[in-house]
């Protein structure tokens, strides 16, 4: 199965990288951008076919390594 884990900064955590990108977009003249926050996307392939087990493995991966839950949230999406 294929899955995507998206890691984002929690609300209220300062994101200087996002701010810098936001500033760059503004200076490029890209209109209509209110704010930017940067995150990470992990595309993961798993040999198993059992969706429950796959989700459990992904949760384990996110909790143990992919995200630092002090400052980050994650979302798991099994794409089939």
């Amino acid at each position, binding site marked *: 199965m294929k899955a995507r884990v998206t890691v984002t900064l929690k609300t209220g*955590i*300062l994101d*200087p*990288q996002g701010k*810098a990108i936001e500033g760059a977009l503004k200076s490029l003249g890209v209109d209509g951008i209110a704010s930017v926050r940067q995150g990470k996307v992990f595309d993961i392939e798993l040999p198993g076919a059992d969706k429950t087990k796959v989700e459990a493995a992904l949760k384990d991966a996110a909790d*143990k*390594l*992919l995200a*630092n839950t*002090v*400052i980050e949230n994650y979302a798991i999406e099994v794409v089939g």
Partner: protein
Amino acid sequence: MKSAVLVFPGINRERDMARTLKLVSGHEPTMVWHAETSLPKGTDLVVLPGGFSYGDYLRCGAIAARSPVMDAVRKFADDGGLVLGVCNGFQILCESGLLPGILMRNARLKFICHDVHLRVERSDTPFTRGYNAGQVIRVPVAHGEGNYAADAETIKRLDGDGRVLYRYCSASGEVGDTHNINGAAQSIAGIVNERGNVLGMMPHPENHVEDIMGCTDGRGLFAGLAAHLERAA
């Protein structure tokens, strides 16, 4: 003093650290590769040096924090052993859960590489007994992610329990936004765990220990550790 310096792939300050430990304590440290599952017998100080473990991939220190040797370090710390993490070592300690919080990207996004002043907040710990409380020392920093952050409750506890041992300050010891080089919460440069046996700090005291370096202010930290361990032995 029987110290062990951990070596992770991508670490580049381990020799500076080993040289300083030898210079100040007279004892050669053992270099311990990250894949080891135990520490040398009789180790009384574990040091996590600075550098760029795993190229700072994922998050600074995140991958090193999950390496086999860290289980041994966790057990060593649980038994009361002294652990010192400098720069990337501090980041690894935070990522491993041995210290609370995290080091975020510097507030002004720049890699900062120059001398800073630190105020030693108290002198009654193994990591600060070589100094006087309130003393200002000058040591170098070299980091892009040194902006210490934690939830408000943790910061309050660190402050209230006297677990902040080093803060960024001016040459005369004033703490404030102007002297807070990287935007760290409460100008935090170094903290200890609840038990007080694990210190993480961003600056590099090991790089100010000999006259040829232009300053020897970092020596007190290591001399204090050596004195503490000699007395305990």
